[in-house]
């Protein structure tokens, strides 16, 4: 074996192992993050964390019930504002539409998807907070809702496009007109994919902090109705982690564990649900 060949072969082995190392480092980051959060946050996770309001500054204990409820309210608003527009827009792209309009919408959706979340916060601030002159749950919900639209729209479109042509032809052959075909054949056939898209989009905005800082703001108490500033899990984690108190830091770890748990469990369940068989068996 010549020296050159030996060199090439050893280079081969070294470089290929290096690529394996790169993959291993990347992937292990997730397990590391998860493990570290469990180790740090797990011990401070108690029942009162879920049921109590934050304790006054300087006092030990308390919980984040208001932040959890606040996050749920914000997600509810995001669903109300974002999902219908994304869903119907996706139907438009896949089923109606001419030449220019779908191109424009698709391009805009991809663009909006890439807009930094803090800029979306400014947008919601300008749209809602400035006219109303105060921070509110509504403003936060709208910020998250706008962020949900592009993802839901593109997802809906791609799952609708995957519905086999024969199903559409079948429903036309039975005398259905186009909207009937869409509403009772195509949408149900794609419903599983569309639902996963919606859930993934919501899981993504559930962890967003930046657009909430100056829309939903924060609140150490319950936020009744939709018109007042509200606390939310991501913002509380940010405030507590950067705050000066030891007790706050412990609570931030616990809240981080809850948030990460929710996001990861949703992602895993939804993706598993999506890959388990095709959606068309039922129709």
């Amino acid at each position, binding site marked *: 074996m010549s020296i050159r060949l030996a060199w090439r072969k050893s280079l081969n082995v070294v470089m290929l192992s290096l690529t394996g190392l790169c993959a291993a480092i990347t992937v292990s980051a997730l397990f590391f993050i998860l493990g570290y959060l469990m180790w740090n946050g797990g011990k401070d996770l108690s029942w009162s964390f879920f049921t109590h309001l934050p304790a006054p500054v300087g006092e030990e204990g308390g919980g984040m019930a208001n932040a959890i409820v606040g996050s749920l309210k914000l997600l509810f608003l995001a669903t109300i504002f974002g999902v219908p527009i994304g869903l119907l827009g996706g139907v438009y792209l896949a089923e109606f539409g001419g030449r220019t309009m779908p191109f424009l919408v698709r391009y805009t959706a991809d663009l909006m998807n890439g807009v930094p979340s*803090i800029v979306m916060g400014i947008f919601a601030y300008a749209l809602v907070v400035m006219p109303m002159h105060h921070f509110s749950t509504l403003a936060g919900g709208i910020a998250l809702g706008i962020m949900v639209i592009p993802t839901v729209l593109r997802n809906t479109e791609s799952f609708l496009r995957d519905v086999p042509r024969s199903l559409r032809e079948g429903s036309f052959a039975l005398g259905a007109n186009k909207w009937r075909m869409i509403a009772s054949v195509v949408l149900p056939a794609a419903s599983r994919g569309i639902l996963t898209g919606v859930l993934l989009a919501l899981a993504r905005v559930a962890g967003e902090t930046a657009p909430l800082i100056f829309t939903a703001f924060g609140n150490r108490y319950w936020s009744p109705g939709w018109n007042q500033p509200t606390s939310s899990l991501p913002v509380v984690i940010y405030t507590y982690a950067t705050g000066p108190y030891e007790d706050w830091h412990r609570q931030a770890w616990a809240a981080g564990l809850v948030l990460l748990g929710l996001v990861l469990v949703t992602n895993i369940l939804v993706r598993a649900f999506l890959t388990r068989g095709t959606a068309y068996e039922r129709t």
Partner: protein
Amino acid sequence: MATTPNAAAPSDFTAHPQTLQRRKVGADDIAHLITLIAAATLLLLAVLLVYQLWVLSGEARSKFGWRFFLTSTWDPVAGEFGALPFIYGTLVTSAVALLIAVPLGVGGAIFLAELAPPRLSSSLTFVSDLLAAVPSVIYGLLGVFLLVPVMRTTIQPALKATLGFLPLFKGPSYGIGFLTAGIVLAIMIVPFVLSVSREVLLAVPRDQREAALGLGATKWESTWKVVVPAARIGIFGSVFLALARALGETMAVTMVIGNNPKIAASLFSPGYSIASVLANEFSEATGNLYLSALIELGLVLFLLTFVLNGLARLLILVTTARGSGVLPT
């Protein structure tokens, strides 16, 4: 309506084919209109976003002009606003992040696309996708309590001892600063580089690999000299996409960068980024000029990510014939 078979309609309708036709067309038109309105809403929102950013930043734009980007005084009390330290911080942290994330991500993608058995490859990609879903505030949390102390006590002194002759690695070790923010960003964007690069590598035709191997190339040579060059435009695309993410990333950076508007050659120095100054000062900005200067920063960030995303999508589209709907979100 050519597909709607009139002849198959029930007989009581055939007496009034005209009304039947009109009724059906009407329903379809309404459905068309409703979905069109939804799609148009998105367009409207995008236009409104640009409009608001432009109009609300008007005061700062007319007062400072281009000087806004070239001066480095940020003094809300005196009404002097220069964005240079923030732009500098954003660019430096993103550059550090890319330097770390691109080799890691592309290397990992090569392993997943070329070497790993399909099952392993898809489950590792799944984990990487999950990593991309971790909220940014969680990265910030780990950054503050884990990375910052390690940087202060171990990594920064070690870098100073070995590479301290470079101006990049001089100065006191605070733990926070450009380098720490760059490392956190790197961990956050690796999954994007990895999954998009893997897609474009997998899109390279199998024949090319076989031809290279058939000519006696080793596995690494066929990968590095044939497959990677064939996919390079798409890999550039994934890098631009990751860069756009890094530029706009807010929370994790805000928590570890030090929040101090200064320009320093040392990576150990605390700094500031566009997104973090928005996160920190927006809700307490008093006065129209202050707010308008912050919104102009938002506009800058928007334009930067807009251009980069557009470029990235174009490059990825060129390499994968699969269309534009496959990007991770």
